[in-house]
Structures are given as structure tokens and as C-alpha cells.
């Protein structure tokens, strides 16, 4: 059980997103008095009547000057029941890369909709990014219910529209909540204005929604970070492979394959500084001892023998360009997957995906914020899973060899496609 929930929100000030986050933090008593005073003072200097809660999250000078969220802002809050990491991202199309970044680690995405306007282009985009990045659960927060007289019909219509969209996008788990962030209805406290609504408040829901398992639906996967070999008087022969379980659950006694070499061995011990474990689930940082003296080093993947992936020299990936440069056929990158880095050449750019309509168009090049499918040829074999079954071993980065910049974030579609 992990009681750390990672939540991604996307949207602009107009949706009332900042107000919602401010309300969530404020009503759950997670805003400090000096932070609030600073926001009030800054709001007054800018000639605003009330405290602009966006100033709580917009941390950079440029963001405050322009009154917009540019970068991902992380907020932390805790209730007695759960600890939350909130990745707050801007909602406009030119910040798709920030949305993708926030969604990449999220367990839950909150899609905020203005009850007066229903689903708009931006709501489509937020839901699509959540679906593309495999976020396990989506909360549809129908905000500004006070401005539609807390109408059940309006709410029902939006929920029905979203159900259609979710089905199209393949989002399996959705919970809709009517609320008013400005007045606090249904954010932390239940609202008498919404007497027809029998569900939970937003906070209550976030506190109790099951954390989707990190492990995906594959066997154990451990990207090896380094070899621990103390060679000390106390531990002359100790040798273990340190890493964080990226998928599945690893158990003592499991047969594992070292990839890409393909050698096999058996797990004889799972160590942590606080004592040995019998098993370790996804997310745990461990050191693994094997029965045989096999060659293992950083960049290798230990995978459960029954469903170990075949190493590939070619793959199809859906990429989102996150830097100011193009991705075209023939471009060379370093591909980073797990702890392994290999050289890669873009074979072809297949298409570009319109993140709002989900329509595909032919494309020769992808630019900043574009999402599309590419084929990649690799200088050395790597072992990956498809992103749909394992986020941890199905994700990769394309890195510019000259500048070191992260150019694209990728999700493996077909590990062995030709």
C-alpha cells in the first residue's frame, strides 16, 4: 500500500484552476499564514480586490509578470489520511509538453470544466494527454456550479458528454464531481446547494480513491543502476545489483533473465539497509543478489523469466517533442530507457496526432509540443515493454547528442515492429 498519491491538474486561470488548488490547500489547512499574507500583499500591489491564489503556485518572476503558469509547479499537502504531490500544469496548447511532464508521473488527473461552457477544446486536450500518458484515473471536476444555479441537468449533460469522450480515449476509470471552487462547495466540505449529489467531495474522493498500482500488468522488471560490491573485511564477497523495481513484483526464488545478454539466474536475496525482503513491488529501491556469477552492470534489465521481453534493435514509439527543435527522419539521438542508453536514428516520422481532435495527419517532421508516431533504429539491442502494459519499462527519452537536451519523451508502442 502506498499512501502517496500523485495528482496532475491542467488548466488556465479562466477555468478557476488556481482557485480550486488554492481552495483545496486552504480548506485542508495546508496554506501557511505567511504564504497567504504574501499573496494578499502582492495581489493588492497589482490592484486586485481579492487574494489571487494563482500567486501561490506561480513561482517564477516571468509567470507573475505575465499572470500565467508556464512551468510545472509542484505543491505538497497532506491530510491525516494521505500525502499528496500535486503537479500543476498550464493548459494551453503551447504548453502541451508541460502537461505531458505532469501527467507522466501522475496516478490521477483532474480535468477541470467550467459548468457554463461544458466541454471545450482544452478539456478534450487534457483528457487526451491523461489517456496518452496512461494516467490510471480521471476526476472530472465540474466547476462554477454556482453560476448555473447548481443545476443537476447542466451537470448531467456535461458528465454524459465526458463519458462519450472517455470511451473514445480509452479512459477506463472516471469520477465526476460538481463543485464551486470560489465558494468552496464540495471541494473539502459538502455543499447543501448540491443536495441532489450523493457522492464524495473532491478531497474526500482524492483521499480514498485506490492508488492505481505502479507496476503495470507485466512480470517483475528491475533496471540495474549500479553494482554494490563493498570488498570490505566485513563483506568481502558481497555483490548485489541495485535498482528500483519498475514493474511487477520481484520475489526471492524468482528465475530472472539478464537483458539484453539473455543469461538466466535465480534471485537468492532482496536487500535493503533496513533488512532483507521476501518480495519487492514496483517503486521499491532494492539490491538483488543472484545465485550465479553472471555478468550484470548498469544499463542491464533483470526481468522475470516467464514474460521477459525480447531485446530489440528497432521500435515504434509515440513521442512528444519537448524542446525547441524538430524531429525528422534521419535524425540521430541518444535513446534513454530505464538505465540504458543507446544511439538511435529516426527511421521515419509516421504521423502527427491532433491532441484535441485525436485526428492523425501525415507529417514529415514533429516540432515542439507535437505528438506523433516514429520508428527508431537502435545501435545496440534494448529490452523494453509496450507502454500500455508497463509505464516503467515502456517509456524513453530522446536526448540531443551535442547539447544533452531532452528533445522528446517517448512511449513504446510496438517493441519489435519493423
Amino acid at each position: 500500500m502506498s499512501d502517496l498519491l500523485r495528482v496532475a491538474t491542467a488548466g488556465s486561470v479562466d477555468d478557476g484552476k488556481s482557485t480550486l488548488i488554492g481552495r483545496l490547500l486552504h480548506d485542508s489547512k495546508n496554506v501557511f499564514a505567511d504564504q497567504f499574507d504574501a499573496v494578499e500583499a502582492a495581489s493588492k500591489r497589482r490592484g486586485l480586490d481579492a487574494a489571487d491564489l494563482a500567486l501561490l503556485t506561480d513561482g517564477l518572476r516571468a509567470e507573475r509578470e505575465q499572470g500565467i503558469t508556464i512551468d510545472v509547479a509542484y505543491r505538497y499537502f497532506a491530510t491525516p489520511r494521505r500525502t499528496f504531490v500535486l503537479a500543476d500544469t498550464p493548459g494551453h496548447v503551447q504548453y502541451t509538453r508541460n502537461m505531458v511532464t505532469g501527467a507522466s508521473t501522475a496516478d490521477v488527473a483532474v480535468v477541470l470544466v467550467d459548468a457554463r461552457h461544458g466541454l471545450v477544446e482544452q478539456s478534450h486536450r487534457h483528457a487526451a494527454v491523461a489517456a496518452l500518458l496512461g494516467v490510471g484515473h480521471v476526476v472530472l471536476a465540474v466547476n462554477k456550479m454556482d453560476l448555473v444555479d447548481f443545476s443537476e441537468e447542466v451537470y448531467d449533460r456535461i458528465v454524459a458528454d465526458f463519458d462519450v469522450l472517455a470511451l473514445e480515449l480509452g479512459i477506463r476509470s472516471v469520477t465526476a464531481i460538481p463543485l464551486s471552487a470560489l465558494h468552496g462547495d464540495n471541494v473539502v466540505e459538502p455543499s447543501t446547494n448540491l443536495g441532489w449529489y450523493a457522492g464524495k467531495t473532491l478531497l474526500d474522493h482524492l483521499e480514498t480513491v485506490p492508488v492505481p498500482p505502479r507496476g503495470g500488468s507485466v512480470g517483475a522488471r528491475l533496471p540495474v543502476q549500479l553494482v554494490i560490491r563493498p570488498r570490505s573485511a566485513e563483506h568481502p564477497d558481497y555483490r548485489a545489483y541495485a535498482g528500483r523495481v519498475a514493474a511487477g513484483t520481484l520475489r526471492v526464488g524468482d528465475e530472472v533473465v539478464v537483458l539484453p545478454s539473455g543469461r538466466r539466474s535465480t534471485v537468492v536475496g532482496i536487500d535493503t539497509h533496513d533488512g532483507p525482503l521476501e518480495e519487492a513491488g514496483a517503486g521499491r529501491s532494492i539490491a538483488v543478489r543472484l545465485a550465479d556469477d553472471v555478468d550484470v552492470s548498469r544499463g542491464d534489465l533483470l526481468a522475470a523469466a516467464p514474460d521477459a521481453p525480447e531485446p530489440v534493435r528497432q521500435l515504434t514509439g509515440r513521442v512528444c517533442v519537448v524542446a525547441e527543435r524538430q524531429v525528422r527522419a534521419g535524425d540521430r539521438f541518444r535513446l534513454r530507457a530505464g538505465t540504458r542508453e543507446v544511439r538511435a536514428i529516426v527511421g521515419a516520422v509516421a504521423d502527427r496526432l491532433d491532441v484535441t481532435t485525436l485526428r492523425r495527419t501525415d507529417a514529415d517532421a514533429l516540432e515542439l509540443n507535437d505528438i506523433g508516431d516514429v520508428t527508431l533504429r537502435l545501435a545496440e539491442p534494448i529490452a523494453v515493454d509496450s507502454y500500455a502494459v508497463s509505464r516503467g519499462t515502456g517509456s524513453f527519452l530522446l536526448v540531443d547528442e551535442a547539447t544533452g537536451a531532452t528533445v522528446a519523451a517517448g512511449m513504446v508502442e510496438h517493441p519489435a515492429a519493423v
Partner: protein
Amino acid sequence: MTTISDLHLEHLTDARDAALTALEDESIHILREVVGSFERPVLLFSGGKDSIVMLRLAEKAFSPGRIPFPVMHVDTGHNFPEVIEFRDRRAAELGLDLVVASVQDAIDRGRITERPGQSRNPLQTVPLLDAITEHRFDAVLGGARRDEEKARAKERVFSIRDEFGQWDPRNQRPELWDLYNGRIAPGEHVRVFPLSNWTELDIWRYIARDGIEVPSIYYAHEREVFDRDGMVLAVTPFTPPRDGEQVRVETVRYRTVGDATCTGAVRSTARTVDEVIAETATSRLTERGATRADDRASEAAMEDRKREGYF
């Protein structure tokens, strides 16, 4: 007899414990990535609570081996003796090399000029960058947390610094999943923040859970203090009271430990770790707001210092 409320408490304790373990696993992963991808890492160790927790996590990350990098303190010379004693003792216990980058030395050598009446905190940048160059450190592990300050909330876990040590907040690498890109050009280095996702309360709960020792000034004690700039400052050789500043004895503790001239104490009776947790959980002020004069200068004080190469 087990009551319903006992069961409830037990569940809450389990939930907190699970959240701490998740943070610990993430930090250990980051520390191992640093050692796996860099030649010459160093860990900034001041003897403050965050760097103590980071050192504890490093102990765990490479166990049963030793921590495979030295530690460094950027020393303003305005220290609390309890903290320096703790720093030296802890480094010795773990068998670690301790590099001290001294602000006083840099002043003596004419690298920087001290402005009378001003804190030495911003002066740490030059000796820090000099030490990074001298020792050819390519990754510098810092204990900063995103919850501390709003510019820090925008900082990456792996944060690239150019040859001048500068941070460019508008040109940061997006950080996705748990793939940290530490590829740098010659002359550049990376600041790495394994505690990015921890809060002050997480730090104290972890100190309690693991029974970690911290310097005594974190717990309530009696001390000669006086008021200045809305802070409660201790009487030290570096902070003598000025005319009109009334010295009194109060029961205080420190929430942050830094340069003695700009780190204020808070009135507190919390003498144990559990009492500190209870106090932190109900505090109405952020730790930097309550205790750090240097962050009050402007809305962007921290962003400006960070751009120049500060921690």
C-alpha cells in the same frame, strides 16, 4: 482491548509510514542514478536536518558498501558550534572526506567583498563554485526541498548549471517519469535534489521513524536572544546586540540552521522529536518565512540568488 480509534490510528500510522517509504525509495533511486552516471559527485552537508536526512539516505542507497563520495560544507564562518561539532563527528563516523569551502578564505583572498551589516549567505555562491571547479565535481547533491520556497518549487531534480554556475529557469529540461537526464557539456555541472518531494513534516517524521540524531539546537533550549528585523536572533560573537536591542533569556529552538546572522529562532517548548512533529504539524508559518531574513528581501529573492549559482 483494541478500540475502533486504536485501529483508526494504526491505519493512519501505516499510511504515513507507506508515504515515507515511497519518498525514501524515490530519493535512494536518485542518489544511485548520480553515482551511476557521474564521475565526481559530492554531497552538500551542513549539519542541518535536511542534509542529515540526505546523508542517511545515501548510507542506505549504497549499503552494505560505504558512501562513494565526499561531503562538502560551504562555511560562512558564522556557525552555531553545536552544528559544526555535529558535522565533523558525523562525517568521521561514516569515514567520509569533508571538504570545507570557506567564505572567510574567499574574503581573505579578495575573491569576494563583505558588505558590513549584511548576511554572508549570498556570499556562499563564489566559494561553492570555486570548490566545484577546484575539485572538478560534476554532480552536487543538495538538500533543498520544493516546499521551501516558490522558486524552488520550479526546480528540477537534476538541474543543469552552466560554466558560471547559473540557473536558467526558463530553459530547464522537462523531467518525465523517473528518467533523469544528466548529460552535460564540459564545464557544466548538475545540482541534484533528492529531497525535492519531501516536506518539512516528512523530514521530521523520518527523523523520528529512523531515530536519527540532529544537532541539539533543533530542540527547545534556553538561550540569550534579542529581536531584530522581526526575527529572534541569538547572542553570538557574530550577532552582538546593537544599541537598544534588549537581550533576554527565552526557551527557543531552530527550525532551520544556517548562517547565524540571518537565521532566527522560534519560541518553542518542543524538547523531543514527537513534540517537534506536533509543533510542525500545527505551525501557521513556513520555515523560511519564520526564520530566514534573506528570503524576505523581495518576491523573487530566492530566484535571483539561484540564477547566480546559489544552492
